[in-house]
């Protein structure tokens, strides 16, 4: 095992522990937790036994194991971006609702806002 493999495995190990902790403590959903843990295990397996990716690539008709890893990484990243975007949208929507609620609450509790002032006599 070379130095780079050790480094990658260490990072993956930390990610796995963090994902497992989040899953067990209920910080993340079950589905999310399992997906992250599975991704860590798969990445660790591919790092430890690179020939596995070569075999899988051949089975899928792809030339090299590195290509398969690259394609998988692109797909996972795209899914990650899309999920983050959707989550951000929901967050924005919630934020708008909160801001709206506060604005209306503030207006309701302000006595001078209860009724608009009568128009000036120039009208």
């Amino acid at each position, binding site marked *: 095992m070379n130095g780079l493999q050790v480094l990658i495995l260490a990072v993956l190990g930390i990610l796995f522990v963090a994902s497992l902790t989040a899953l067990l403590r209920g910080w993340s959903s079950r589905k999310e937790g399992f997906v992250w843990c599975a991704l860590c295990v798969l990445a660790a397996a591919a790092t430890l036994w690179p020939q596995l990716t070569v075999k899988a690539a051949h089975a899928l008709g792809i030339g090299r194991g590195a290509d398969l890893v690259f394609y998988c990484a692109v797909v996972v990243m795209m899914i990650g971006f899309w999920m983050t975007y*959707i989550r951000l*949208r929901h967050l*924005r*929507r919630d*934020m*708008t609702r909160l*801001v*709206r609620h*506060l*604005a*209306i609450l*503030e*207006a*309701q509790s302000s006595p*001078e*806002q209860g009724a*608009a*002032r*009568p*128009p*000036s006599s*120039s*009208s």
Partner: protein
Amino acid sequence: MNNSAMTQSGDPDQIRDTVFVVVPAYNEAACVGRVVEQLRRVYPNVIVVDDGSSDETAAIARGAGACVLRHAVNRGQGAAIQTGIEYALQRGAEYVVTFDADGQHDVADIRRLLEPIVRGRCDIALGSRFLGEALDLPASRRILLQLGVLFTRLTSGAKLTDTHNGLRAFRRRAAQKIEITLDGMAHASELIDQIARSGLAYMEVPVTIRYTEYSRAKGQSSRGAVKIALHYLLGRVLR
């Protein structure tokens, strides 16, 4: 005031107290005071939604006699309009009008918009500068607006002449049915889409838009328009 009684009388001048004018405003200190004063000469209920402005918009609008709602942070024009509509409905509005804060609309046009609603001919009246007048409208802006009309026709099927006009009037039950979820400028297309799907009766009314250097500076660039279109399409997909 009873809605059916008003419809029978059919005179927009008799329903002024039940009309709430919603003015979304973001950093409009230069204009909002004059706009509110003009509105308040005719309509006593003016709601300015200050969308997290960093200038004196809220204070000036309040000083001019408007009821001011403040968004703690900037959420976009669509969000501000929805806030204003919800508050107007809570205050018992029978008619809700949306009106831009940059001074490009004519207060007299509100009466024209309300007339067909009060007479029971429609639930929503949409202002159209292309049926009315667009004074000092730059050619580039005209093309952009026409592209907006075409875009909305393709996406919502509504055959309108002006889809991005901030001057609109709603009967109470129509305003209750509308829920703007797109916070930014894409709300204009979303609104047309909702109106077209709602089954509510709508019509266009000729209005005058007066372009000034100020309102032109506040308007959308073509790049911004593309961004708005993408926002709207994504909003439709992820609804």
